[in-house]
């Protein structure tokens, strides 16, 4: 029942945004995979031959060439930052799941109960979500400042000989940044959860109360199970946000590689933005990030589109 003209318009309406997404999101994603099998400094083109065909004189770089799975082998066995980065990403995710998300859920549940002053609580807690991570990094640097910061002054460790270097000490800085990240992530989860809680049928709760359940039981046995879709969204958002951690690290380390803050997303950029570029190797790290990301993405898509597919 569409006219000819309508069909053309429909194609344009669909096609132009699609083209954009394909050209600037999907094509690069695929190209990343291709590049991960090459070795390239970014100068000149890429020759579609194995790198072994080119002479390898010390100091003289080879032209772009096909490198097989060598980049992956090097990343997994030879690159000292790789496994620490994976570990740090895992820690980041674990902290989000174990601390930030439950805290956000707790805030949401309490606020949803209509506690006096909830409007204020919600507004204040929500503010960090609106700030950019770069800004958050800068604000917290004041708190963590070794000589003048809030923490060191309060605990009395701000003299040059008994400093705690929260952001420089590789044993501490990841945790210091995680506090910042949770400061933002918990309210984000809170808002998502509040939306879900609002959608819960109040009659469900009434029925449970009439049956004699207390608040705790009402929540866990009645409300929580019906929020499965929201729970999945929150979980996926948590995972995605943890894989995206970049801005905080960059602004804290001021662009320089900092021990203790290795993350996959940071390693990718270190290898491609700079004086001598290891494009192939950087792509490899990007592909690792892609493969890891596809897990939560698939879960989300499955959940979101399960009903449609029916």
């Amino acid at each position, binding site marked *: 029942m*569409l*006219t000819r003209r*309508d069909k053309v*318009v429909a194609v344009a*309406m669909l096609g*132009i*945004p*699609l083209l*954009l*997404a394909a*050209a*600037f*999101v*999907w*094509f*690069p994603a695929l190209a990343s995979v291709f*590049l991960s099998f090459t070795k390239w400094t*970014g100068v000149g083109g890429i020759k579609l031959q194995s790198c072994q065909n080119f002479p390898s004189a010390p100091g003289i770089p080879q032209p772009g060439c096909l490198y097989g799975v060598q980049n992956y082998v090097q990343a997994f066995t030879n690159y000292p930052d790789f496994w620490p980065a994976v570990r740090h990403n895992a820690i980041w995710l674990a902290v989000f799941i174990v601390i930030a998300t439950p805290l956000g859920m707790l805030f949401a549940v309490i606020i*949803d*109960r*209509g*506690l006096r*002053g909830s409007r204020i609580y919600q507004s*204040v*807690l*929500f503010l960090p979500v*609106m*700030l950019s991570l*770069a*800004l958050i990094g*800068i*604000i917290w640097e*004041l*708190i963590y400042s070794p000589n*003048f*910061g*809030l923490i060191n*002054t309060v605990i009395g460790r701000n003299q040059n000989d008994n400093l705690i270097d929260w952001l420089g000490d590789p044993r501490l800085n990841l945790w210091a940044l995680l506090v910042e990240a949770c*400061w933002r992530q918990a309210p984000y989860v809170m*808002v998502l959860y509040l*939306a879900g809680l609002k*959608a819960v049928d*109040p009659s469900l709760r009434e029925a449970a*109360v009439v049956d004699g359940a207390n608040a705790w039981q009402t929540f866990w046995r009645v409300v929580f199970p019906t929020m499965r879709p929201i729970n999945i969204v929150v979980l996926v958002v948590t995972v*995605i946000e943890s*894989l*995206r951690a970049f*801005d905080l690290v960059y*602004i804290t380390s*001021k*662009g320089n590689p900092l021990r203790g803050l290795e993350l996959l*997303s940071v390693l*990718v*950029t270190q290898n491609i933005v700079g004086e001598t570029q290891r*494009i192939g190797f950087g792509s490899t790290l*990007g592909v690792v990030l*892609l493969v890891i990301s596809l897990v939560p993405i698939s879960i*989300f898509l499955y959940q979101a*589109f399960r009903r449609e*597919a029916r």
Partner: protein
Amino acid sequence: MTTVTAARPRAPRLTTAAAQIFMIVMTLLWVTPIVFALYVALRPITETNKLGYLSLPRHLTLENFANAWTQSDMWRFFLNSVYVTVPAVLLTLFGASMVAYVVSRLAFWFNIPLLILFTAGNLLPPQVIITPLYRIYLAIPLPDWISGSGLLYNSYAGLIVINVSFQLGFCVFVLSNYMKTVPTDIDEAAVIDGATLWTRFWRITLPLCRPALAALATLVTTWIYNDFFWAITLISTGNKRPITSALANLQGQFVANQNMIAAAALIAAIPTLLVYVLLQKQFIAGLSLGSAKG
């Protein structure tokens, strides 16, 4: 907030008190960093160098803000943010609503796969695609009057393009869900009256989506304004950067004066704070739409 007070039994007093205390403590903790940053920004560096940040103030001054503004040409960075954010938001909403309309109103076999494609794209970490994207940007020429650099790289157009491409997914997802809830009877009447597809989209359906569009506009504006990664990697000239990524420049420029950096950061936060104060409802509605299912 809930209104079902009659059927709900009174919670025991202890729980309420405990909850209140917990929330008060949490809220105070949560607001501390911002208040602290504001406090530091209001104090002169000479004073804090001697007494530290946590001392009682001898002078409170706005000089850090004034200096941060004038010494770094912050107005230029804000202008850059406007150049990038406004077109990007408009293009994103425009493009996303078009796709959402076709996908939700017309029954094509590829609707679901398309939706999946768009949504997944939005969830990718940007670092996955930056390597080829960087090279693509270096290779695409643009006429000089669009891009100062002659390339997609290091241009506002470049930033707009990638932000739009990246935000399309989420907006398509939300709008398609929302449009499904918009009743189709007016649409069908318009078809009988001979209205074209475009008219049905532009004149009939889209205006009905205003709440969702407003919510998304708030969200997407905040997200694009807060973008850091794309600007850092795809803009190489310092004074072309939007304000959020320019904070990295300022960190270097004012490296000796943390108070000024704090002031600059707070100035950069003003637009988001405005959105927060005036449009908080829309922002939260946007997030809710994105998380709930139509």
